């Protein structure tokens, strides 16, 4: 989740007191923020915010608000969150019916008496970017436009336009371009054009005089949509696919500007279709609902007795409005938060407000019996035999490549579990056997003191067309010996000893396998079931791995052997 940089001085002035970086680190617990560093020279604080459901905290204003409320009980007065439609409107956005199938929701507000300076501009852009990129899924679900209010004449129209019909000068360029040209040639169009792919008409915001504000979610117009230091009146607009997110983000941006002294004016969005919040939505809008929870519920989650006063006090300290009714609480989150899906979410805020370390830990005391799975026990048994036989255990990565698990082993194409979104060809397939992992060790260890005796027990994934997940995860064990006289008989002797102690009767069936020397390879069978293979590594395979020492090896399937083992000992 986002890492933001803010000025310590800015944070302090928004909170109203000064802090040491250590104090700040401590207070960041209130916002699930991780202190990433402070640069004394630039006064820059780096903070990572972990809660993906609280974009209101991804900015200096939001962090300051939460800390200020807790420390000083000052929660700000946001008078513009009046009831819908009753406020005086600063303007209107008229939505055309065809937007429903394109990018259905838009809202906005005005901010006046703002003192836009360079630092504020940087912070505004940072907030805009973090919210639209991360919370807005790279502008798909949310995009934000900020304009110089003085250049706009209301009402603003949100409508769909054919790609060739309208042209305007986008931010960052000098010349007029059509919407299609912007998608094709403008850097932002190239990045975000994907969102509008397949659409015959594109969203556009124009004012009453026909001046283009922007082409959401791609780019603002240069004439209207460029905010500069010195501006004092702004129009803020958000478009998106989900009305709740649009309203939430507008509320966050409104309180942020208000915290910096702006006067917020409501803008009414007038829809020809229903939004879930009526057809005329006055924004900012306190749209979130209150939740009811009982003191018992809170106590059960927290694990201790609490008083109504304590709980409501903690919640108020954290920004909630609370109504007490006997043993139950009606809590209303602030309008810039929409992360309360369940009363449990309120419980966490109670704990954060009080401080996690104020709760005394209690050891869970209910008796349970611990234990390992049978396959893990079986693998451990085999690990014991193998280390006892002088073998060094190896542990390897499972995500590797067909080059290693097939081609370098002398094998042709086979169905294995492969990655679709490959980042590197070296990590593009799951191993289906372990021997290649041991060969990898051999290839990397030609300088290491001989003899080499290595083994690995571990997971592999084998293709299983009929299975629900088209593959199965199995546990296998491979062992390899490498020294000037390494041969079949040595590997066989180890296998023989292992099977003796496992009390499993096995036999070898001569076979063909291109990893091994012809006539020195066998399939390991128990009854009619193939459970593994054994052989002397083929010199062509060794050379392919750049191994200059004879090797012999075997590999067995532990899931099958476990079944046989359990049947034979029960």
């Amino acid at each position: 989740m986002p890492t933001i940089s803010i000025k310590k001085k800015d944070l302090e002035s928004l909170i109203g007191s000064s802090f040491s970086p250590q104090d700040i680190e401590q207070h960041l617990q209130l916002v699930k923020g991780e202190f990433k560093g402070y640069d004394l020279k630039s006064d820059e604080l780096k903070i990572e915010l972990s809660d993906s459901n609280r974009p209101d905290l991804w900015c200096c204003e939001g962090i300051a608000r939460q800390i200020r409320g807790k420390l000083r009980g000052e929660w700000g007065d946001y008078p513009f969150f009046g009831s819908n439609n009753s406020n005086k409107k600063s303007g209107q956005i008229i939505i055309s019916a065809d937007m429903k199938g394109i990018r259905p929701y838009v809202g906005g507000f005005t901010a006046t008496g703002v003192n836009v300076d360079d630092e504020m501009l940087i912070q505004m852009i940072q907030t805009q970017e973090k919210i639209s990129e991360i919370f807005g899924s790279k502008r798909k679900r949310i995009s934000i436009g900020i304009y110089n209010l003085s250049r706009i004449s209301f009402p603003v129209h949100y409508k769909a336009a054919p790609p060739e019909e309208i042209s305007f000068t986008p931010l960052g360029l000098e010349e007029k371009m059509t919407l299609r040209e912007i998608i094709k040639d403008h850097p932002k169009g190239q990045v975000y054009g994907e969102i509008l792919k397949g659409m015959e008409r594109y969203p556009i915001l124009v004012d009453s005089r026909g001046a283009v504000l922007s082409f959401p979610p791609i780019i603002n117009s240069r004439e209207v949509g460029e905010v500069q230091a010195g501006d004092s009146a702004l129009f803020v607009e958000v478009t998106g696919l989900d009305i709740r997110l649009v309203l939430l983000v507008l509320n966050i941006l409104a309180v942020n500007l208000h915290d910096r002294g702006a006067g917020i004016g409501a803008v009414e969005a007038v829809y020809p279709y229903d939004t879930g919040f009526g057809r005329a939505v006055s924004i900012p809008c306190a749209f979130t609902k209150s939740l009811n929870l009982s003191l018992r519920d809170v106590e059960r989650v927290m694990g201790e007795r609490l008083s109504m006063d304590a709980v409501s006090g903690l919640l108020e300290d954290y920004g909630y409005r609370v109504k007490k009714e006997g043993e139950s609480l009606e809590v209303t989150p602030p309008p810039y938060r929409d992360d309360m899906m369940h009363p449990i979410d309120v419980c966490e805020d109670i704990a954060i407000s009080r401080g996690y370390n104020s709760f005394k830990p209690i050891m869970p005391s209910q008796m349970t019996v611990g234990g390992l799975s049978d396959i893990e026990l079986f693998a451990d048994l085999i690990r014991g035999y193998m280390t006892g036989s002088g073998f060094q255990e190896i542990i390897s990565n499972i995500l590797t490549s067909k080059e290693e698990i097939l081609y370098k082993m002398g094998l042709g194409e086979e169905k294995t579990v492969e990655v679709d979104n490959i980042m590197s060809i070296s990590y593009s397939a799951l191993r289906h056997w372990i021997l290649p992992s041991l060969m990898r060790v051999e290839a990397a260890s030609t300088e290491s003191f001989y003899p080499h005796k290595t083994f690995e027990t571990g997971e592999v994934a084998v293709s299983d067309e009929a299975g629900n997940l088209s593959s199965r995860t199995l546990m296998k064990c491979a062992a390899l010996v490498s020294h000037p006289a390494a041969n079949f008989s040595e590997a066989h002797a180890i296998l023989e000893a292992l099977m003796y102690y496992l009390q499993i009767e096995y036999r070898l069936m001569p076979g063909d396998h291109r990893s091994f020397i012809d006539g020195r390879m066998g399939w390991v069978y128990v009854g009619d079931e193939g459970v593994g293979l054994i052989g002397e590594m083929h010199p062509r395979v060794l050379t392919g791995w750049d191994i200059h020492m004879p090797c012999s090896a075997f590999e067995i399937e532990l899931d099958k052997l476990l079944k046989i083992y359990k049947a034979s000992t029960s």
Partner: protein
Amino acid sequence: MAKGETREIIDSLHPLEIRLLFAFEAGKVIDDSLLISRASVEQAQKDMAIGWLLAKGIVEVTGETVERIVALTEIGERYRDQKTPELRIYETIRQTIRDNRDVNMSGIREREDLDPTEISSAIGALKDKGIVRIAQGGRIEIADESPVSEFEDIQTLITAVANRGEVNLSELSQGEQVIIEGLHRKRGKTKGVFRINEKVSRTYTLTDLGTQIHAEVLQRGKPADEISQLTPEMLKDASWEGKSFRRYNITLPPPRMTPGRKHPYKEFLDSVKDKLVAMGFEEMRGGLVENEFWNMDALYMPQFHPARDIHDVYYVKGPESAREIEEPFLANVSKAHYSGGDTGSRGWQYCFDVGKAKRLMLRSQGTAVSARTLANNPKIPGKYFSIARCFRYEQVDATHAQDFFQIEGIVLGEEINFRTLLGLLELFAREVAKAKEIEFLPAYFPFTEPSVELHVKHPKLGWMELGGAGIFRPEVTIPLGVHVPVIAWGLGLDRMAMVALDIHDIRDLFSANLDMIRTKRTHWL
């Protein structure tokens, strides 16, 4: 020196040193060759053992002479077998003349298996000595046979040197020395019959300490009477009785061997496994390949929301989708996402995409294993853990491996609440990290509420995050059929393992370098 002290020295003597000491006589000087013959040791053995005796101050060097040792070169060895070219050619000429035939240079060249320069220089030598002369038409005649004896002497000397292998130049007669000086290979030249090597020969005598030790060694008896290696035969025929065993210098370094051994990182994981089992945790296992449903949807991570983007995942290539998703879990979970279902939640309020839920991927978090356990009639109360291999779509570097272990688990029971959650984490901090100082921080995980990060003070790393945990949201547990609170916990122990193994690159936890694996020492207790 007291007897005890000399005894210590004698006990440490190598059998070769003792053999040499037996060759010494008190108060007398001995040279290298005598030492070799008396002690019947090889030259190299003598060199080694005399070096030790000198270093210990038992013998000292009394003199040093440089000897010139004569041996045959390859050419000399050939002349030994086939005679010198001069003799061969002389005999050929004589034989041909006896057979009443003429002989000339080309005739000799045809008959003798010698190279032309050898032939011409040999004939030149015979001519110079006046033995042959070249008559008209190139015919070779014998002029005077008497100087041939000179060449016969050379041949005799070659045979004599060959028979003795090496000869000290000074042991030869004046005449022989002249011959050798004339025929030895000069520095930088390839030809030559004899080779003269200079050899430093020393003479030694016993020091005072040596004399004392020598006397005691003689008294103890010949090393031949000591047993070096006890054999089954000796045990059988009791021939070891009455004999002493050669004392070993047990302080010498032993030969290298490589024992069979657990992998150091696996050993660490084993110790974690053991601790978890001891705390009453039962192991759960899952597959390397999962679908998005169990990896994410069942954990209430919304399909189209930043909470889903906490990490990127690897998707699986053809077939891309699971055939089906188990009911009633699919229905319950999709309802929880859409409207909360019967969980008391308002849900994420979007239409659940079953196609996306079926998408196959490489397991990205161990919590997927926990989700399947919840859906599979877990014990209540119950504690479970898994050490699960997970995969993340990230650039592989010193802090990100292509696959890694996640140590995760769940605790189910009526007693589970925020304080027992903290209690469990405190137990982990104490048992797994040996931490005395701990701190709980608010955290965010999409599937738990409340969520906690456990920070501990590590002796080497300082304050570090040891793990994350929380109580599963009702939107996770209720759709999977679990109606008691459930702790979900995860421990991040790789950093601890890396410190203990003194490695700085996470990829080295799965190193392919056998030397590194063999030499890493661990200290987990």
